[in-house]
């Protein structure tokens, strides 16, 4: 009898906790993807091409933010996301130049960025907090300086490179490809969230030494986070290169490309799958809406959003929906 009574609350707790991962996250995610899938087939009228382009870049921003978040889950708050975005873009452009077909060049470029991220991850392994942030920032600038100073016939130097348009410039196709890659990113994020990695990442984030004492192989997990995250960020870079068909060191490695994913994740809700996607949607749409008001220096909004989120909304938009549930680290 007593055993039975003990069981009920436990299973109830289980039932109450489960929707947090599956129900709470999956239903809105499914709604988001259904809407995003339907979007290009809506009768959008004259401004259709323009709206589709906004949609495309929203999806790219979503991939960037979510992949940044996956790395942040392991306690590594990186300012090097622009580096992997840029490495993806440049790797893709250079591979196409050797005559490789794009479906091959895309994953290979991402793989290359992932491998380079392992080098950065190994070097910054023992750094934390501001040291880590500064080292990753420095890494981005070093990569940019190297690409800019390479001979012009290799990587175009400061003038940049021309890239063939993705899918022959078919904007609906490009949009759907971006959606597919965002779905892949979300899938990876959910897999990390529900699997073994989630516990390892959380343990490392909350106390690396303790995690190591408990037998978590921190080196392997931190590198894994770096690889997954930069692989996905590089895919976003490939999409960008194929869409704008022109890349230059200053644009692709711009600090803005590191700031945006960070701000988006924090604004949307750190360590969640839906949060960064939601944040990207809100911030990108707001960016387009405000484009005529704030012409130069749109990042002002990102700076403001970041400050206000830290001061008043430390758990982001997701915190509004589930007040008081998850523990509030950051």
């Amino acid at each position: 009898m007593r055993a039975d009574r003990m069981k009920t609350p436990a299973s109830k707790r289980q039932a109450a906790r489960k929707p947090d991962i599956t129900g709470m996250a999956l239903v809105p995610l499914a709604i988001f993807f259904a809407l995003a899938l339907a979007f290009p087939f809506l009768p959008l009228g004259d401004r259709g091409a323009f709206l589709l382009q906004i949609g495309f870049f929203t999806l790219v921003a979503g991939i960037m933010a979510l992949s940044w978040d996956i790395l942040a889950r392991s306690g590594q708050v990186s300012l090097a996301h622009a580096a992997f975005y840029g490495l993806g873009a440049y790797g893709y452009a250079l591979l196409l130049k050797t005559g490789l077909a794009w479906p091959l060049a895309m994953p290979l470029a991402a793989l290359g960025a992932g491998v380079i991220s392992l080098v950065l991850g190994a070097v910054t392994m023992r750094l934390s907090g501001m040291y880590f942030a500064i080292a990753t920032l420095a890494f981005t600038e070093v990569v940019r300086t190297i690409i800019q100073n390479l001979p012009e016939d290799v990587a175009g130097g400061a003038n940049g490179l021309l890239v063939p348009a993705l899918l022959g410039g078919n904007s609906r196709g490009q949009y759907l490809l971006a959606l597919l890659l965002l779905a892949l990113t979300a899938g990876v994020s959910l897999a990390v969230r529900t699997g073994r990695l989630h516990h390892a990442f959380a343990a490392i984030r909350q106390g690396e030494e303790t995690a190591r004492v408990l037998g978590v192989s921190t080196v392997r997990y931190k590198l894994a986070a770096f690889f997954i995250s930069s692989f996905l960020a590089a895919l976003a870079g490939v999409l960008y290169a194929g869409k704008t068909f022109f890349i230059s060191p200053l644009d692709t490695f711009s600090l803005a490309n590191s700031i945006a994913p960070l701000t988006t994740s924090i604004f949307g809700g750190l360590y969640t799958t839906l949060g960064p996607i939601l944040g990207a949607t809100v911030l990108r749409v707001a960016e387009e809406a405000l484009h005529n008001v704030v012409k130069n220096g749109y990042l002002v909004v990102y700076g403001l959003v970041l400050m206000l989120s830290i001061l008043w909304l430390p758990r982001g938009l997701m915190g509004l929906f589930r007040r008081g549930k998850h523990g509030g680290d950051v």
Partner: protein
Amino acid sequence: MDLFLQTLLNGLLQSGIYALVASGLALAVGVVGIVNFAHGEFLMIGAFMAWAASAFLGIDPLLSLPIVAVAVFGVGALTYRVSIRHVLLAPELNQMLLTFGLGILLQNLALMLLGGNTRTVTTPYQASSLNIGELSIGGPKAIAFGLAVVLLGALYFTLYRTVLGRQMRAVAQNRRGAQLIGIPVDRVYLIAFGVSCGLAAVAGVLVSVLLFASPTVGLVFALKAFAIIVMAGLGNLTGVLWASVILGLSEALVQTYVPGGGGWSDAVFFLMIFGTLVIRSFRQTA
């Protein structure tokens, strides 16, 4: 040989400004315990104030310098009051991201209001130069270096010979202990953060004369200041001076002796950050 001496001299002169920016940052990090990613933006504000005073009111930057310093001290104190103060006890990550957001905000606000163009300040002594034997020193550079030396001297005198300085060092060592013996910690923080921003602004005034004022001018100096304080060790104020000289000299040497050095000299401080961090992190665990 002359080329070598001239290179060393240029590097040394450059390090004066680096030391100004970096000691301000070290003050914020060491005393307040805040890694201020917006430090370069206070430099930028100082540069634009000097430019505005010179362009609209015809005031020489060297005369407007004290006013700019006090004004930016005020801006810094206000920043502390409305934002920094609320995250003093928050996780380091939140503090970092807050100042990072502030930096982005200020930089792009300047971009929005003033545009991305660079503004130069013209002064009568701009093209003057001093000749010592075969060596020549640009007039503005010499003035900037002299000012940096005087100001740093004043800063170190304050820190090591006055009551306020002793309070600052006490707070830096142990916040709670300082509070227990009756030091007004909040006020010390406010002053230290204000002075930190003021020092950046002074450097900004000098930068507006030596280089130009632009919304992004602060970023490079802030990054170099980070390199310097990382090399010196966080909050180590004397180390800052040596690290500044090392950075200034190595940049000058790269510029002179490496082919195409102009482009690569910007990478020197990144290598410095990387090198120090990696060496230090491995030595720690060894």
